[in-house]
């Protein structure tokens, strides 16, 4: 009987072994005795907690992912992945399922916020030079996460089975097939056709249909989320193993004195730190930097993370309340959308694809990804790690490169839009020439040359990387804006969608 009376207390202490986090020890225990929190360090550096260090972008992307996960599971209760039923089940979700429309809007907005968050997070990591040794591998994991995020978003795009979905994915599948542009030129498509195989693997058929839908569904609700979760675990775990967030070498002199209310640090001298140093690579808190600048993760880091979580949730829900996720007419393979546009984050690529499907859809993205992946391995410098625009050239170089990148992309696009391209000047030019000489490849070459020039000028790979990355951002932004806003029927140029006419 006594045991029964005491059950709530025993249950609580069995649940929460370290007791209330009132002491340093308790606070540490709060973190590392919790399976969900133990990826966090028990103590966190004050540098990491500054808002400008990260702007919370990674956590924002994570919270958006959690939102899509929760709402996605809810949507799965009603969604039916078959062409005959998919569109109607979305209509049902929109019109009759209680809060269905709200949930679907949240799913859609969270997905968009996740893409934006991941891209901004990558830009943050790059510009603070946080990818450097020993974090090279985590940069690669981050790139894998970017690719999976985009893939998740793209596979989700087909599921509503409306015109938007159908034709965007048709474009995507044709891009997958665009390797044929090369194999056709060499004349080997007949016996070796990797492009066609890619499309077949993607769609399970030669056009978007029931097979493609079930494939995309499976990828979207199972394979890719599991992959993303696994990669995320690695990503977070590596942050700790790589010694927390990157910070400048002279971090002590850059931080203001700690607030009076900061909890005292290491009241006893650490005994075991050095033996730990024998197995953990990198610098432990006790070596060099001293422990004064760390604070317990609970509550400092927890509060900061909770704030970012809540901010993302609130923004996402507020957007969902007022802006409905689009749903066009039911997919109709006989009536092509014109213009058929991919999701906005692919429209920069689609703009390049309009010049050459292979280069825009496969060639240039591959070059970009390889280039990004190489950055931490080429840049072995130490100057400016953990600082915004750290390294030679600084923000001036970043700004100048951004200007150059914008000017180059605008120039190339202006020529292509006003005067056409080689085909218009010399009809009969073989496709292989256009594949290798088109606005996209010229732009890539210009950016590469510019980057080489910056490396020479500053005698620093970091400077070259800043130049290249800023150009890349400028190109991505401007091409995306052109694709979203200035392209109309038949991918023609229009100053505003109201001038499309006929539609």
């Amino acid at each position, binding site marked *: 009987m006594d045991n029964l009376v005491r059950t709530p207390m025993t249950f609580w202490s069995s649940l929460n072994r370290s007791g209330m986090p009132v002491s340093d020890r308790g606070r540490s225990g709060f973190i590392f005795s919790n399976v969900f929190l133990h990826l966090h360090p028990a103590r966190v550096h004050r540098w990491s907690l500054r808002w400008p260090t990260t702007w919370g972008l990674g956590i924002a992307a994570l919270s958006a992912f959690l939102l899509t996960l929760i709402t996605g599971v809810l949507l799965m209760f009603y969604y039916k992945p078959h062409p005959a039923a998919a569109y109607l089940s979305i209509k049902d979700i929109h*019109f009759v399922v209680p809060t269905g429309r*709200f949930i679907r809007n949240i799913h859609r907005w969270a997905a968009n916020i996740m893409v934006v968050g991941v891209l901004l997070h990558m830009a943050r990591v790059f510009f603070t030079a946080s990818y450097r040794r020993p974090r090279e591998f985590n940069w690669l994991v981050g790139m894998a996460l970017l690719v999976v995020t985009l893939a998740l978003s793209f596979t989700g795009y087909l599921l509503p089975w409306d015109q938007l979905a159908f034709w965007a994915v048709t474009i995507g599948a044709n891009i997958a097939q665009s390797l044929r542009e090369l194999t056709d030129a060499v004349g080997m498509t007949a016996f070796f056709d990797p492009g066609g195989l890619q499309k077949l693997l993607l769609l399970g058929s030669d056009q978007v249909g029931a097979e493609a839908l079930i494939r995309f569904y499976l990828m979207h609700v199972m394979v890719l989320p599991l992959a993303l979760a696994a990669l995320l675990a690695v990503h977070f775990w590596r942050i700790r193993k790589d010694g927390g967030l990157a910070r400048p070498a002279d971090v002590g002199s850059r931080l203001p004195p700690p607030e009076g209310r900061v909890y005292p640090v290491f009241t006893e001298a650490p005994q075991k730190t050095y033996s730990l140093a024998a197995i953990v690579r990198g610098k432990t808190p006790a070596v060099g930097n001293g422990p004064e600048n760390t604070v317990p993760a609970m509550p400092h880091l927890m509060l900061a993370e909770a704030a970012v979580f809540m901010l993302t949730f609130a923004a996402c829900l507020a957007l969902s309340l007022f802006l409905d996720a689009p749903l066009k007419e039911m997919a109709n393979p006989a009536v092509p959308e014109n213009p058929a546009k991919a999701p906005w984050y692919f429209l920069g690529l689609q703009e390049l694809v309009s010049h050459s499907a292979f280069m825009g859809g496969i060639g240039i993205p591959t070059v970009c990804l390889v280039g990004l992946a190489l950055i931490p391995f080429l840049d072995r410098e130490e100057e400016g790690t953990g600082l915004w625009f750290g390294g030679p050239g600084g923000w001036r170089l970043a700004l100048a490169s951004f200007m150059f990148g914008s000017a180059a992309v605008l120039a190339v696009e202006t020529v292509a839009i006003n005067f056409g391209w080689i085909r218009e000047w010399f009809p009969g030019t073989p496709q292989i020439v256009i594949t290798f000489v088109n606005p996209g490849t010229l732009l890539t070459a210009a950016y590469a040359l510019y980057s080489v020039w910056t490396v020479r000028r500053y005698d620093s790979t970091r400077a070259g990387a800043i130049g290249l990355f800023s150009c890349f951002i400028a190109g991505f932004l401007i091409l995306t804006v052109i694709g979203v806003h200035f392209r109309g029927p038949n991918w023609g140029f229009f100053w505003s969608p109201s001038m499309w006419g006929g539609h």
Partner: protein
Amino acid sequence: MRQNKHLLLWTSLVLLGTLIWAAVDENFLRDWRRAQREARGKLAASERADLPSQVRQIVLAETGAVERCVSCHVGMALDGKEVPGDKVFGRHPNVIHDPARFGCTVCHGGQGTATLLEEAHGTAPHCPEALLPKRYAYASCGSCHAYQDVPARAGLETARAVFERSDCLACHRMDGRGGTMRPGGAGGLEGPALSRVGMLGYAPDWYAGHQRKKAAASSGPWRSSMPELTDEERRSLSAYLRTAVGAPGLVLAKSLFLSRGCLGCHKVGGAGGDDGPDLTAVGRKDPVLTPYARVRGPRSLENWFKDHFRSPGRVVQGSKMPLLSLDEREADELTFFLFSLRRADLPMSLWPKDRLCVERLGGREFASDGETLFGAFCSGCHGSAGQGRSYPGLETFPAVANPSFLKLASDRFLADTIRRGRPGRRMPSWGAALSDADIAELVKTLRRFGDSPFAGDSRPARWARGDARRGASVFQADCAGCHGPHGAGGTAPALDNQVFLEGATDSYLFRTVKNGRQGTVMKGFGAGSPGRRTLSDAEIEDIISHLRSWRKGK
């Protein structure tokens, strides 16, 4: 840390507010909830409990489609609690098809799955189909039904006039009009309703019966309103009653379409020409593919149709459709008809008999007499009575009922021309669409229009023995001005057409050149006229031989 605490507090509050607002929106502000609240407000307090707040829907057993229109229009079907007399919440008027079984959208259009006003009525962007304007509601009978053997417009107009004139509406009700008098005196019954008599049938000896009652009655409507009818008038009335199928105006509208020669260029259900778009399902025109850019007025299919009739070339750039010069009433009637071309995608097991007849068993929606056929297929170009037409910007269409032409043209020549057309010109070949009997009917109709039989020709088809070279120089001098240097046509018809050269006999050519064609600029060359020299018979023979030299692969 303090900043973060504040941020956490405020964002949490915003989040909480958003969730509360979403809950309020979900539970009180949905369009269908508002509508049901309004309906409840109009009910007596004791009846309100009969109308619980819930989504209501019709599930169509045959197609499995779901329609939620009754979520707002609570009284229309499914034993909802109706607000008597209310336009939105009242009961559906009594029509042949029960909405609970047939659903709403099959007749009214719109989006059945929706529970939001704009989406349900199809005014929101990307709705597949907008609500059909209420006055066109009967057009949607055409979603499933066909109507066979629509008579010619003129006859139908006369029949309607006879019906109105004969005072039938005194005792009978039709399409919501009439039936004010009681033939049996005070307390008597009105005459049977005639709105659907075309389907339900009526006694063939109705006229004799009426006359007997008239003879028996001493006063009242039987004496005052029942007229004596001639046989002709009774035939007209029968024709008119046959069109009373519960869809007021639909058959009449169809007859207008069929009298304007639209089928000459447009196909409907497989019959018709190829110059214009197929109209079989034009009433469901995809809003995405409909060019609205140059349409004046509101963006609706109704307005698109009407504006297109007013000026086809403005609405659809490059349109070859001539200006029809319809008055507003006709434009409205034609719009009504176009809305009836909706062809619902139903499994064939659900098709009504009439549609099966038309689409599978070779039945036709138009009658097969020559007048109707000419109206449907020919009048668009050749005029309502074969008088020819010229539309601005298009070539002149020949007057096929010209007496001096008909006198020279044998029935065989006419039939052959209709059957094979004029390859390369606007005149298509009708051999596939029209049977030999139809074509014979058309020839007879032409003869009737022109009031001239074939004059006869005792000579063989080819007798001219002229010199083609001499003919060529005469042709250049006297014919090329209008017919073109190589006979390809100009202001005058083309002469190098192979079907024409094959069918036209020498006598036909000879007499046309010699005597000219009355009512056109082609004056006879046999007698001199100012500014034009007289050709001898030999010269005409030379020209004929020259024309024959254009015939390929003799």
